[in-house]
């Protein structure tokens, strides 16, 4: 009695194809692997003379950014254009959309423009779910970051970067370092790493930046870098927001850097071939030392390149699922 509904029913069509991409949680391993395989082919293509494919020709992609972001917005825009879609970018000032009714009104206005896909970034956790639940069934929704909840394309570009450098996930020990509490990236990375079978996932942070019961997501918790980085293969750093100093979460940037900033000394705890990643933009001297960020083991620029390929893969898959569903719908109408 009184059971909750399956939250993942929303992302998949009845035959298991991707329809919206809202979270990496709960998606089957085969689907994540397919996304990575497709993205791999797009990475290779981006090195060719002609970088465009006609997969989304005639489709309109609307980037709805309720939270400012230049980098994520431009990679989504480039990804959509390389798929030959028409792109509409909307930076929507959050102060004018504090109320839910305006979010819904905004959606209805955009629906009237007959966009086929919404790429959504919003400061509230669950915003992408809300939009997916309320748009007409003809629109695919891609989550470009909602509150602290999820940033699934970032996680998938990280997975692609790891796979291209390390191959199989099973033998890997991966450490995620920094502000886990406020990070949608960390949550999506953890779910993706688990689904793809990573050997061990660790989080390293002071207790003020760790959510309660984070270990329930299947991670080992460390509060000390020397212990946490021992023998890891992949180090994923997170960005630290300046506001965190003002709410008794941390005493100062310098103390955080001393304890949790990744410098060459701390990197030495990890395996000799360990790689370093960061979702950007980086705070040099707060989370990471310049020599490490720019060093030979840093994959930070690969991540940017792979980001475009992963977003192309996700958009083409979601549009495929959407078209398949439209087919089902019109068949139902005919029947």
């Amino acid at each position, binding site marked *: 009695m009184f059971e909750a509904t399956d939250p993942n029913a*929303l992302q998949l069509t009845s035959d298991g194809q991707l329809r919206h991409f809202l979270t990496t949680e709960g998606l089957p391993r085969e689907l994540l692997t397919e996304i990575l395989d497709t993205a791999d082919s797009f990475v290779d293509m981006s090195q060719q003379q002609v970088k465009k494919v006609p997969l989304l020709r005639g489709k309109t992609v609307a980037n709805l950014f309720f939270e400012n972001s230049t980098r994520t917005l431009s990679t989504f825009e480039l990804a959509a254009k390389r798929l030959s879609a028409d792109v509409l970018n909307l930076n929507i000032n959050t102060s004018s959309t504090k109320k839910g009714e305006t979010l819904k009104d905004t959606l209805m206005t955009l629906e009237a423009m007959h966009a086929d896909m919404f790429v959504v970034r919003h400061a*509230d*956790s669950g915003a992408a*779910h809300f939009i997916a639940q309320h748009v007409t069934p003809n629109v695919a929704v891609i989550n470009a970051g909602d509150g602290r909840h999820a940033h699934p394309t970032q996680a998938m570009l990280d997975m692609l970067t790891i796979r291209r450098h390390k191959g199989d996930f099973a033998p890997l020990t991966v450490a995620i370092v920094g502000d886990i509490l406020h990070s949608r990236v960390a949550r999506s990375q953890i779910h993706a790493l688990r689904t793809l079978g990573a050997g061990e996932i660790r989080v390293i942070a002071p207790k003020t930046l760790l959510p*309660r019961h*984070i270990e329930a997501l299947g991670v080992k918790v460390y509060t000390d870098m020397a212990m946490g980085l021992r023998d890891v293969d992949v180090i994923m750093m997170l960005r630290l927001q300046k506001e965190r100093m003002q709410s008794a979460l941390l005493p100062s940037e310098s103390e955080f850097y001393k304890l949790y900033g990744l410098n060459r000394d701390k990197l030495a705890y990890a395996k000799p071939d360990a790689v370093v990643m960061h979702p950007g933009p980086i705070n040099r001297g707060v989370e990471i030392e310049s020599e490490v960020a720019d060093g030979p083991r840093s994959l930070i620029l690969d991540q940017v390149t792979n980001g475009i390929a992963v977003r192309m893969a996700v958009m083409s898959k979601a549009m495929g699922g959407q078209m398949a569903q439209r087919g089902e719908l019109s068949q139902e109408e005919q029947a």
Partner: protein
Amino acid sequence: MNILIQGGRVIDPTQQWNEVADLYISNGEIVALGQAPEGFEAEEVIETDGQVVCPGLIDLCTHLREPGLTRKGTIASETAAAAAGGITTLVTTPDTQPLVETAAVAELIQDRAADVGFARVLPMGALTQGLEGEQLAPLHGLASSGCVAFTNLRRGIASSQTLLRCLEYAATHDLLVVFQAQDNSLVAHGCMHDDTTSTRLGLNGIPEAAETIEVSRCLLLVEQTGVRAHFGQLSCERSVRMIEAARERGLQVSADVAVHHLLLTDESVNGFNAAYHLQPPLRSQLDRAGLRQGLVTGTIAAICSDHQPHDPIAKQAPFAATEPGMSGLETLLPLSLSLVEQQLLELPQLIEALTAAPARILGIDAGTLAIGSQADICIFDPNAEWVVSADSLRSAGKNTPFLGQTLKGRVSATLMDGRIVFRR
């Protein structure tokens, strides 16, 4: 007017009645059980076919939204919903606009309820001016204008000194204080129970300590002042245990729970369904078990609806941006009956928690079918199934997570003061 309620299973814990018998009502009073009084001629006969006949339910916490927020509900719409839910007495919260902090507003609410005539409405007054937690509200005057209890809701009183003075002043006039215990510094921007589900969903959590710290502080000050005190809508197992321990030491404190906290947990929030955005939040399985246990042992005496009707827009936003609360008047009885189905309580015990117990907490003469008492009566079919839908609810608030679900137990008639105020 003479009314005969024929052939019902009459259950009244205050009289230890649980038998199939006829109930006779005359001029608003219950005049006899079983045998008709001499010369009684029924002008109206209610055939019950063995349905349950019990005292009208008393709901210790409802938000009626009038005056001020009538787009969410009016006294007329919500008391009609109460009657349809078998509730004849409602205690309302002071967070109307304007607040219940003047005699005029307290009287307005009671007058309007009396005009509509579906249910008795007993207002709770603000404990502090503006519910701001700083200056005492005119408690004595408000009590003279019909306020049955005083509360600062979950707005909190940050200064323990101020809280102490509020309790001393209430104790001076033997007034009942209702705590909706919450330490707001620990709530911050929280919108659900702080645990694994909030971690997964990336929603700000409300830790258990937000309630338990405040329960603890209130209990210590109640002990010091001797004020009559009641804790409303507990959500944590540890709160129940603290209140149990205080009662064992002889402290006169009581507690209630909202029925949904006995049935649901924070896991329901998976999928970001804003219908589950509640305050206090749905908590863990352990907390739910503790609340259920508290009800069995009697530490928690009453079950309430914590009815909070909303307009549709209030729930149409990403989870944290929605307004908390669910519409609950019409589901209070069927949801409570599921506790009998689950063999947690016997039916008379449940009826006690919905009638006599809240009357005792408030110190009012209601919640009984004793001969000579006012005829506030609920008649329900415990086996009737119905589907909760926007159309089947009379409340203006359709914001219930039970929409679309089939519930068991449905009110067929409600009488207040010997008048039929609802009949299906």
